[in-house]
């Protein structure tokens, strides 16, 4: 019953903007390339993390003791669950159940917002500790050489990620509203899929940030 969008529907055709299937093909490919650029964007931060972990191994091993592992882990589950909801929403819209899809999208928006609030709570704690990035670092309980770099990386990585979450929430809200307005259905739902893919990517990035910053 899904398969409106059968795998690789037709050969791409020269008749520009031909049928829905080839349009979908182009849109998905373009979205994947965009997601690839996002991956490379984050790779810079992962490189910096790896280099400084190599340079200051002790600091990076001790660092999770100064993080709120509970909140970080909670956030992981929040994001994964929201990802599952978005995947369910795409499944629903493919089957033409647009009200269910909108509701699922709205739910994951709520989870995204919850993520940001939990993140904000964590940030507040760090601010109170004085564990601020860069020149403002003043966390006396963790004053080893390199600890400032850990926290700078923590702020930059989670900060850039949080910006992506914010954008993702915006995208999901728009999609939910447009779904409610009946713009998407079993026949045409490419934007929902693409927006969902963006949200999943945000989730995937967090799945790497979480063990690196909180667990190991």
């Amino acid at each position, binding site marked *: *019953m*899904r398969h409106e*969008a*059968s*795998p*690789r529907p037709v050969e791409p055709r020269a008749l520009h903007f031909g049928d829905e299937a080839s349009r979908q*093909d182009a849109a*998905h*490919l373009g979205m*994947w390339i965009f*997601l*690839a650029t996002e*991956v*490379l964007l984050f*790779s*810079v931060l*992962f*490189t910096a993390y*790896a*280099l400084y972990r*190599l*340079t200051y191994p002790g600091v990076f091993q001790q660092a*999770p003791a100064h993080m709120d592992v509970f909140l970080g*882990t909670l956030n*992981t*589950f929040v994001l*994964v*669950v929201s*990802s*599952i909801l*978005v*995947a*369910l929403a*795409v*499944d629903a819209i*493919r089957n033409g159940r647009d009200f269910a899809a909108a509701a699922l999208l709205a739910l994951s928006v709520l989870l995204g917002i919850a993520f940001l609030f939990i993140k904000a709570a964590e940030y*507040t704690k760090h*601010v*109170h500790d*004085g564990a*601020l990035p*860069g*020149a*403002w670092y003043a966390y006396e309980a963790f004053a080893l*050489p390199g600890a400032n770099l850990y926290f700078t990386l923590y702020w930059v990585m989670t900060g850039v990620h949080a910006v992506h979450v914010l954008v993702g929430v915006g995208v999901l809200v728009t999609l939910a509203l447009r779904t409610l307005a009946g713009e998407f259905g079993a026949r045409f739902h490419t934007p929902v*899929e693409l927006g*969902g*893919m963006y949200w*999943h*990517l945000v*989730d*995937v990035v967090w*799945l*790497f940030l*979480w*063990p*690196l910053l*909180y*667990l*190991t």
Partner: protein
Amino acid sequence: MRGGVRVLAVGAVLLALATLSFGLSRLPLGAWAVPAALGIALCKAVLIAFFFMHLAERPGGPRLVIGTAGVFVGILVGLVLAEAAARAWPTLPPGPFPVSRLPGTERSGPPRAAPPWLPLP
């Protein structure tokens, strides 16, 4: 409802893997902690890409694209690490080390005190 069931099944695996990752971090794994955590994260990423991001339905272009991106992330991280790990002693940083500021750049240099809008204790 087959699609929905599959989404839920994959979701359950994801949550289980996340729990596993958290559990492993409580164990003294030593040098294996990071590879284990990253391996689990990679598994989760592949699951999400294939089943939530529709990669399973789209062979060809998209798989090529994201695979290439992965390879290049590996190249960047790998070569930088390999180079840095092989550096001779004198070029490794001895830790925070006083470097004098240039004359006349105090204004544009980074502020020493926290900005006023931060709710500091």
